[in-house]
């Protein structure tokens, strides 16, 4: 597979490490009511879509950036690659 890194261009997937669903960015608030339930969901519950999937890849043998890759699980076609840091900020994880 090839991942088209937003800064570096197309790079072999062998340079990357896969983590999983990009919902791992959405770590719950530790002080929330029902934090235990929310962390349980965060830790264990995943969708398993046949189709588009947003997932986290780490460019370990590269610039060390975490990426959010939108990949079709049926075809492996990759339609979007973003810096996870940008995604995290867009999802309100910034300060």
């Amino acid at each position, binding site marked *: 597979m090839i991942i088209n890194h937003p*800064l*570096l261009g197309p790079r072999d997937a*062998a*340079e990357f490490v896969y983590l999983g669903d990009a919902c791992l960015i959405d770590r719950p608030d530790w002080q929330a009511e029902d934090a235990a339930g929310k962390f349980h969901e965060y830790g264990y519950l995943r969708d398993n879509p046949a189709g588009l999937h947003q997932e986290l890849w780490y460019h370990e*043998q590269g*610039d*060390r950036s975490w990426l959010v890759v939108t990949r079709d699980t049926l075809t492996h076609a990759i339609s979007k690659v973003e810096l996870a840091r940008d995604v995290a900020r867009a999802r309100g994880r910034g300060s």
Partner: protein
Amino acid sequence: MSDYHLISAPPLALYDQSFEGVSLIAPADFAVVSIALPLGGEAAALKAIKSAFGKALPDVGKSVLSKSVRLVRMSLDQGFVIFSHATPDAESFVAKKLKDAAYTTDQTDVWTGLILSGPKARTVLERICPIDLHGQAFAVNDTARTTMEHLGTLIIRTGDDEFLLMSASSSAHSFLHAIEISIRNIA
């Protein structure tokens, strides 16, 4: 004065070999210092880098040579300064120039450097390097961090037929072996 003295012995010190079509040299006094750009202080840090070295830190994947100092952009918030420096104070040498505008870490002993040059350099690298090194795709001063024979490697094109390769110092001998085998294996 101490009764004891420590002798410096980098793993591939003095390595210098010529083969048909390529030569492979471990540069002496090879020093590397990383620069991290503080969050929110990027502009100041970049300015400090420019005034310290006379050239701006380039974009990710690029490097620039300013006199004998090479500035490499490793990632959005990190750069490397690669230069020749014999004593084990490369980090403070760079830190002083930057006047606290960025975070610095000595990387000299983390890495081992090898310069592969000659008309067959690209052919040698074809066996271990997944990056497209064609002149149109990887021009002089372009850099990439990748993996060669399972070893993380920073490759910098320093000339039409010359590449600086950097890999972890602990596995320096395996890295050298991988390149030597590639040299042997090309037709």
